């Protein structure tokens, strides 16, 4: 399977993980699904094609991050009945900040300038 083919399976796997953390008390707006897909398809495809990441090797770690994404989205949705696009974007920001810090600590990503 090429990365372009595999990335869709990977995204399905991640949506499952996000759903696990969200649970049945809230729904997810359809535009949030579209936004998450567009965003992470690009990121994952880059990781798989440029950096040569392997899903089978990284799956455990990435789906754990997916569950964290679900938890953050749930947090931002507070008492709303569903997770909207704003909550999804805020959750992504939290998760990606955490991932960047992790990558910098592990030395797999260059440290960013403080002005960034």
């Amino acid at each position, binding site marked *: 399977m090429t990365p372009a083919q595999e990335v*869709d399976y990977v995204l399905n796997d991640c949506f499952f993980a996000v759903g696990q953390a969200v649970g049945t008390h809230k729904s997810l707006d359809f535009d949030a699904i579209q936004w998450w897909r567009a965003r992470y398809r690009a990121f994952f495809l880059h990781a798989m094609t440029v950096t040569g990441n392997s899903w089978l090797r990284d799956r455990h770690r990435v789906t754990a991050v997916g569950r964290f994404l679900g938890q953050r989205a749930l947090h931002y949705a507070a008492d709303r009945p569903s997770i909207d696009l704003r909550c999804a974007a805020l959750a992504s920001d939290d998760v990606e900040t955490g991932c960047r810090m992790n990558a910098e600590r592990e030395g797999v990503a260059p440290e960013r300038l403080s002005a960034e």
Partner: protein
Amino acid sequence: MHTHEPHHAIHSPLTDPPQAVSVGAPRNTPHADDVRELERQVEYIVDDCFFTVGQVVGMRTTVDYDAVIWWRDHYRAKFLAAMQAFGNRWTQDRSNVTSVAIMLAERAVRYSDGKPSIDCEAARKAAADVERYCELHARRAARAMGLSAPDDAPARIAGYWCNYEYPDTQGGG
């Protein structure tokens, strides 16, 4: 934009006659541009269903990647066939179809009892149960509405997303 009822409202019937009646007959063969657009849209729909299955499975267990692959291949083909025949009715049908996804998740959890995760076998068995249920339900609903013509049947079931086979792929899904 809140497009549907919350997922926890899982007791809705799988068949919704007013929506189902409006589906109409299958359309003619779609244009290549339409197919490309439907192929783009079906990805969001499959994501939506995986999210729902994950919601219901929760932290009780997890899913094997093989099972993810099998479910995706299976339902993407079926959803795309239904969309090519009837157009993209996701906005109208989302609540009904995700209710079916809830059942799929519960069956998969049951079939994975005693195993560390939902494997491909559990995923297949759960899908078979759900599709049998949808088919029976659709037949019953069609009978209740006095609609028994085989050509009209697929158009009259809310569960047509997982039962419709494009004529040239009969038996392949």
